[in-house]
């Protein structure tokens, strides 16, 4: 089949559609506008981060990471991501399973709820936890009695991060699992497999690239979240400062080179995220196409 279709496809590409293409000059102008727009808004900021990080030389760059407060902030960021990402991965799997395998009342409300953090301001994501756990909040007096700190402490940062990042795994999985259907799972069930066996042996291999895609985005956001975390953190140096907050403090103290040095680490993370995401997206599409090909004989 591949051999039969590859030839005409190839010749079509070699001979672009003249009647429905633009004149060369229009093409150049549009391409030029795009290049300038994307270069100005995307490539230049990225370039500036690395340029400013190394502007005062390599020594200044590396000395930035000897600052104990900066090191602490890196540790805290890793810790928060290590808690928030697994929590949200389990939630994403559970939510995607229940939303794509069953029909029940309130299903569309649940889907809207999962999207909520994507359309509200991150500041609101921090605000709601302050209203519950802050000193003048709902649980404030109780927490004071127990001497537990949630706001201006690590638990609050984790909560705010969990809130901002919980949609990503679920949203990566729902369309994929919806499209793949449940035929294989039903077959496994009829052969006597139990729920966990079906999940580990049938579903997980089918969705692994979609899952990875979601986890990557969730992790990038968890490590880079600023607005929500900034509300609940209290900015206590060496204690409740994550990397983005440390960048803010350094920048506001005019320590530009160290600020950009920390920023360059997060930019590197963003670039790796983009690369992995593009790859996982491509593999997930392949899995989807494979699922579509398998179901084809039945539908035609």
């Amino acid at each position, binding site marked *: 089949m591949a051999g039969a279709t590859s030839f005409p496809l190839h010749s079509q590409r070699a001979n672009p559609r003249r009647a429905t293409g633009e004149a060369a000059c229009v093409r150049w102008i549009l391409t030029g506008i795009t290049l300038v727009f994307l270069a100005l808004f995307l490539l230049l900021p990225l370039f500036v981060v690395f340029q400013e990080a190394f502007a005062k030389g390599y020594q200044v760059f590396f000395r930035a990471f000897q600052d104990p407060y900066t090191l602490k902030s890196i540790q805290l960021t890793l810790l928060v991501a290590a808690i928030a990402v697994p929590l949200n991965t389990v939630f994403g799997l559970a939510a995607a399973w229940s939303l794509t395998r069953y029909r029940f009342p309130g299903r569309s409300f649940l889907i809207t709820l999962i999207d909520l953090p994507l359309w509200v301001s991150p500041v609101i994501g921090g605000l709601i936890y*302050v209203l519950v756990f802050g000193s003048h909040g709902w649980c404030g007096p109780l927490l004071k009695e127990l001497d537990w700190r949630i706001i201006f402490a690590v638990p609050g940062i984790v909560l705010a991060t969990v809130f901002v990042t919980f949609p990503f795994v679920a949203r990566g999985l729902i369309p994929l699992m919806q499209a793949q259907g449940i035929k294989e799972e039903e077959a496994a069930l009829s052969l006597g497999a139990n729920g966990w066996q079906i999940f580990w042996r049938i579903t997980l291999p089918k969705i692994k690239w979609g899952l990875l895609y979601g986890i990557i985005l969730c992790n990038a956001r968890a490590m880079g979240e600023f607005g929500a975390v900034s509300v609940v953190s209290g900015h206590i140096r060496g204690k409740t400062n994550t990397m983005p907050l440390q960048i803010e403090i350094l920048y506001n103290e005019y320590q530009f080179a160290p600020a950009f040095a920390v920023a360059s680490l997060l930019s590197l993370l963003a670039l790796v995220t983009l690369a992995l995401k593009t790859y996982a997206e491509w593999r997930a599409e392949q899995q989807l196409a494979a699922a579509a090909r398998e179901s084809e004989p039945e539908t035609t």
Partner: protein
Amino acid sequence: MGKRFVLPGFGLTLGYSVVYLSLIVLVPFSALLVKTGSGGWEHFWATVTAPRVVASYQVSFGISLYAALVNGIFGVVAAWVLVRYEFPGRRLLDAIVDLPFALPTAVAGIALTTIYAPNDWIGELLKPYGIKVAFTQLGIFIAMTFIGLPFVVRTVQPVMQDLAADVEEAAACLGANRWQTFWRVVFPTLLPSILTGITLAYGRAVGEYGSVVFIAGNLPFKTEITPLLIISKLEQYDYSGAAALGFVMLAVSFLILLVSNGLQAWDNKRKGIA
């Protein structure tokens, strides 16, 4: 009905999801609603219509509209070029479009501020013409354009990819020139997705904090955004005031969501007819 529940795990997965969402979302949001109401209607109204707050609405809701519209125009051009034309580096450029999703907002914030500050990079080039970008409303516009950039491109791109070539060919055969074909045949098909993308970009820009707060300068009545006012109210322990502003932002975001869902439904309906 029974057949839909063949697979095991319904109770476990749905139960877990509902409990998780209740703890993370529903309980805290009910706190927001209760706190908003706790000060009484008059206090709420006085808080959300205070002159400084109203000025911040103009900045947050007004400038993000301009940014979303500019993204609408350039986003369509970029999507067109990325889908239709072949040039070296196209795939790389396509992947980098998602950068504003992946780059932490604080990093974007300090990078944009450095680029447009009066003595750096582009800021220095614009200085002789008397154009100030950083610490003005223009700077906020730049940051909001950056943050909303992927939305239009990513919503329009799949629709462009699925455009049937034969419709354009038919238009060309019937004597339409390229511009007529685009304007009368291609553009109406793209319109719902363009509007959806603009709405999404608007929604994101309205609530944006990290990338805006550095470049904004945060002068009351001029370059102060509503999310920043929420934070400053919290710092003064004015919880009901912060909740009131949070409620207003939530209501506006909800309206934007309704519009974007409506647009998507319109798009699906049109696809169904075609």
